[in-house]
């Protein structure tokens, strides 16, 4: 990104932060949190502690960050170095990102930008113009991506509530501002567990590391009656629904499973993990020292805000998280894919000069698909 684009984004971000203080708050137990931020084209500043909304707003106005973060952990001394912070506990967090879902639609709305000659084309392995293989991929997620991510959130919430005993009002879902959702769990029994324990929760949620014995299969003489039932709680019940399909087929399928043998059963379990497991980013949940995008702040990958989803089912990120202003601006756009923001269609653009509202211009500039000359 060059000077002009950065200046434009900084001005638009600043205006958002100035006009929308009501949307950006410090989280509870503020003084125990670590904050951090990034400016356009520069590194991360961490180990900041803040007292209240006022201090946060001051930080935003003074630095005009491209991204703002806050720890899910609580510390005695959040502004000291990692070693001296004195970690107390951390909310459980999850990151669900549509790019990890291996969706078929993705190739339709991904573009590659050549780092050598700046040519933008539909997804490919090398530049059509100069044959370079130094490419950046940019995605403009579609509704299918959002629906698929929502479905993962639904699966996650179900496991959290049914299996892990988390109360629904302690689960908060946010749109990440780009391609997915962030889920927070507050006040649970898991506040104080460490990274290794969280990694076990991750495997549980993703359905990883299951052994055939857990689902009734044995190397020697498996017993039909030890296979799961539809009424079973937890993974056994979900396994039944997925593998048997219906109660009437249960018996027949158990016979097949037994005939196919132990090692095939193991393989089945591995494939099942992609179907019934919830696709979360394991590193995010395991990291107990992470600073995570602050709710209400803007995501510099899109210019959209990270916002709370009151009703996930009806939530539409492309209207509900777009807050930049409507002022017109002239840009040169290389965005060969159509996108929709605030119910308005934009593109495709193939290098033409266009005049669009700031929020749409920022969306393309953030994705490095437009310039201001």
């Amino acid at each position: 990104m060059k000077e002009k684009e950065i200046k434009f984004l900084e001005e638009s971000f600043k205006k958002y932060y100035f006009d929308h203080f009501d949307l950006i708050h410090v989280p509870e137990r503020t003084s125990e949190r670590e904050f951090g931020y990034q400016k356009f084209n520069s590194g991360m500043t961490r180990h900041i502690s803040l007292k209240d909304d006022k201090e946060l707003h001051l930080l935003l106005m003074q630095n005009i960050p491209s991204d703002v973060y806050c720890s899910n952990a609580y510390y005695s001394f959040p502004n000291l170095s990692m070693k001296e912070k004195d970690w107390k506990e951390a909310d459980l967090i999850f990151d669900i990102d549509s790019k990890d879902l291996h969706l078929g639609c993705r190739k339709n709305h991904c573009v590659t930008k050549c780092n050598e000659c700046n040519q933008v084309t539909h997804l490919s392995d090398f530049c059509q113009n100069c044959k370079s293989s130094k490419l950046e991929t940019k995605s403009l997620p579609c509704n299918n991506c959002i629906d698929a991510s929502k479905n993962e959130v639904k699966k996650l919430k179900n496991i959290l509530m049914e299996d892990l005993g988390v109360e629904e009002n302690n689960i908060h879902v946010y749109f990440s501002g780009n391609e997915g959702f962030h889920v927070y769990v507050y006040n649970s029994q898991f506040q104080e567990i460490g990274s290794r324990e969280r990694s076990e929760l991750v495997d549980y949620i993703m359905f990883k590391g299951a052994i055939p014995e857990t689902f009734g299969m044995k190397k020697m003489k498996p017993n039909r009656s030890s296979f799961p039932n539809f009424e079973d709680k937890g993974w056994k019940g979900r396994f039944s629904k997925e593998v048997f399909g219906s109660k009437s087929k249960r018996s027949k399928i158990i016979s097949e499973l037994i005939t196919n043998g132990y090692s095939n059963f193991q393989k089945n379990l591995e494939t099942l993990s992609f179907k019934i497991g919830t696709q979360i980013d394991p590193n995010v949940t395991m990291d107990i020292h992470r600073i995570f995008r602050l709710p209400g702040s803007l995501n510099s990958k899109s210019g959209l805000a990270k916002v709370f989803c009151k009703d996930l089912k009806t939530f539409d990120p492309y209207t509900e998280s777009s807050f930049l202003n409507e002022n017109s601006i002239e840009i040169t756009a290389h965005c060969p894919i159509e996108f929709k923001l605030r119910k308005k269609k934009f593109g495709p653009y193939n290098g033409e000069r266009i005049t669009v509202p700031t929020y749409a211009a920022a969306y393309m500039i953030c994705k490095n698909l437009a310039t201001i000359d």
Partner: protein
Amino acid sequence: MITLGKDEIAKYPFLADAGQYLKDKGFTLQQFGTDPDLKLSVEKALDRVQVSADGKIYKSDLIDGEASKDYVLEREVFSFLLAIVLLKLTGMNTLIKRFSLAEARRAEKYLEKDLANITDESKKELAIRIIDDLFSIQIKKLDDYFIIPISNYLTHSINFHEREWKLINRHVENGYVFLTPHETVRLIRKELGNYINSKIINAKTPSMIPGFEDQVAKLVNLSKKFVTHSVTTGEYPPCIKHAIDVLEKGENLPHSGRFMLATFLLSRNQSVEQIAPLFKNAPDYNEKVTLYQLNHLKGTSGSGTQYSCPSCEKLKTQNLCFAIPECNNIFNPLQFGKKERK
């Protein structure tokens, strides 16, 4: 502290206050060194330590946790308390570790029996209270199972390598893990061992008691077998640290873990002779076999190909990975500490 009946002290002697117990019975340590009848208990104590050093569990005179005669009970408790005195006089930590682990396993059997006891409610209550008092794990009984909060379960289960302990392979419901009595006590074996270990470490070391010299000399001799020369240099990744830890405690490391450790250290240019002693504490240690296997991995015998350290991904599936944030973005333990975080 929990008040214990006579047979309970014999089952869980580590709960007793040693000095107080002897005083209550009207004996001094010195008497055990001189009185021929009492000296039998010292021999029994020696045996108790020797058996544990062998990785076995001492066979008690209790039958089903009960003793027919009071003096049998007493001797049980004496031999435990005297074993500690001998260990303190010997001063070898490896022997203390092994003894603690063996005694933990012995107590485990009784705890399990007490938990499963359906005729005597008080026995079950006591076992539940011991587990709560010592390890702050709140167990509740639900039908045929004992249920414990998932977070509690995890802090213990992450130390196990076997896949059946993974949360995914457990019956989990509404925030709780369901366990049988056997699994419940198995879960705390390590902590029970640590508890006994720390009790011994924190006990005062008496000055030599006349009449104990022989037994102490025997134990000093025995302990020579277990001296290890640690090879820790440089910052190791958690998976490697963990493997070394397991071996140093004399616990069993699965074959895959040994393979990882050996190939890792060989790649870090440690010699076979430097690595071999690490495996000394393994319950099935055999020097010849270990050297042969290490040379094989190094490629100096047989096939001639040097084996390389498995990838993090592979180790994850073998439950040998204990990733920490510093592990982000690396694919092989050998890269640990070498790559910058993104």
